[in-house]
């Protein structure tokens, strides 16, 4: 039997009737047409489907859409504001943090959670934080640099805001 859910995704509220077995990732991609969130392994390992749900990074292939009822979700589409890339997106651009780009949305959303919890991570902490995200191209070096770039920029912005 279908269930009604209401979910806020990137600030927009949606109400839908869904089958209980519908995974959040398929809800985002196939129902809301937000295809920036990728399906990689589908076995909860690769992290390509990572989104922010109620402030925390989750693998949306391992959450039922019905479990997300009432939740606030941010996907990669929701990061840029007013045509300005988020510092993480800018970091991946500037530091060449991607090659094929398939893992990138998940990498960025996990890094978003990581930097929220720890605005000034060491390289080791970044690598530990990315354990749930797999990249088959880059060897991770530039992904780590991209996140360091974003962390620096976000701390700078926070300091500037604090000084005003």
């Amino acid at each position, binding site marked *: *039997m279908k*269930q009604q859910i209401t979910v806020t995704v990137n600030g927009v509220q949606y109400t839908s009737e869904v*089958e*209980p*077995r*519908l*995974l959040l990732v*398929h809800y985002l991609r196939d129902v809301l047409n937000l295809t920036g969130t990728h399906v990689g392994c*589908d*076995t*909860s*390992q690769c*992290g390509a489907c*990572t989104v922010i749900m109620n402030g*925390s*990074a*989750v*693998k949306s*292939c*391992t*959450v*039922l859409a*019905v*479990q997300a009822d009432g939740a606030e979700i941010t996907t990669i589409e929701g990061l840029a504001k007013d045509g300005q890339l988020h510092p993480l997106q800018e970091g991946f651009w500037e530091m060449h943090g991607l090659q094929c780009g398939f893992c990138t949305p998940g990498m960025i959303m*996990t890094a978003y*959670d*990581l930097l929220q919890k720890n605005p000034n991570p060491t390289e080791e902490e970044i690598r530990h*934080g990315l*354990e*749930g*995200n797999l990249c088959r191209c880059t060897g991770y070096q530039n992904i780590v640099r991209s996140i360091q770039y974003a962390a620096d920029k976000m701390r700078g912005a926070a300091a500037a805001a604090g000084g005003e």
Partner: protein
Amino acid sequence: MYPAAFEYYRATSVPEVVQLLQQHPDGKILAGGHSLLPMMKLRLAEPAALIDIGRVPDLNGIQDAGDSIVVGATTTYWNLLQSDVIRQSLPLITEAANVVGDIQVRNRGTLGGAMAHADPAADMPAVALALDASMKVVGPNGERTIPASEFFVDMFTTALSPDEVLTQIIFPKPQGTSGQAYEKFAHPASGYAVVGVAAFVTLDGGKVQTVRVGITGAGTVAKRASAVEQALAGQEPTEQAIESAAAHAAEGLELNGDIFASEEYRAHLARVFTQRALSRAVAAARG
């Protein structure tokens, strides 16, 4: 990949969970879903109904109850990692929770789920054994408390009845001079424990008063290493004494063997990681 179809119920109270379990004998409880949903997607599990306990208010949270710390079943690893009272009294939990899965798994996965699922390679069963935790469960005939040492029965099998729900995990607060440590050899791909050893010791007058060692990953079910504990209790915990006690680590385990790690290798890892965990626990106790 989709799971097979199921009916979904979102419970709002513990009595409702028990009632739903009785109405749906083929149902399963859904907490964080980070063990159950992957199994359902692979069709290794096809429950007819899911009873979601994720929003039952009394089941989430960490309470300091004086001589014990009570953790609600749906408390996530991330909740545990954020808790000061856990970090101060039961740093073994903090240490182990930090090496469970990855950020995303720790954000969703729950302590109660790990206990009730009883994956032979999960970290937390070893921790519960070493800390002498007990499980509060509620069923149609009321509640009962099961010590961790009797809770983990076999691979994916616990002492829970099908119509019971695990509600709380109760950890006694350590008394006196104590130390705790978790040592894990993680599978490089899955992150699960090939072998994980949780150690707890108390010292009195330079000698080991209490020692509890929980081993996961090596065998079919997480177990106390009784032979190790007997060998070390009452001894002065010198490097030598720890090493000879740890030599008993694989005794009494029904060892797992697979393409990654043979039974013999797991037995070896159990001994080495028991020695490391005990050495660190003793060092922590000495301060």
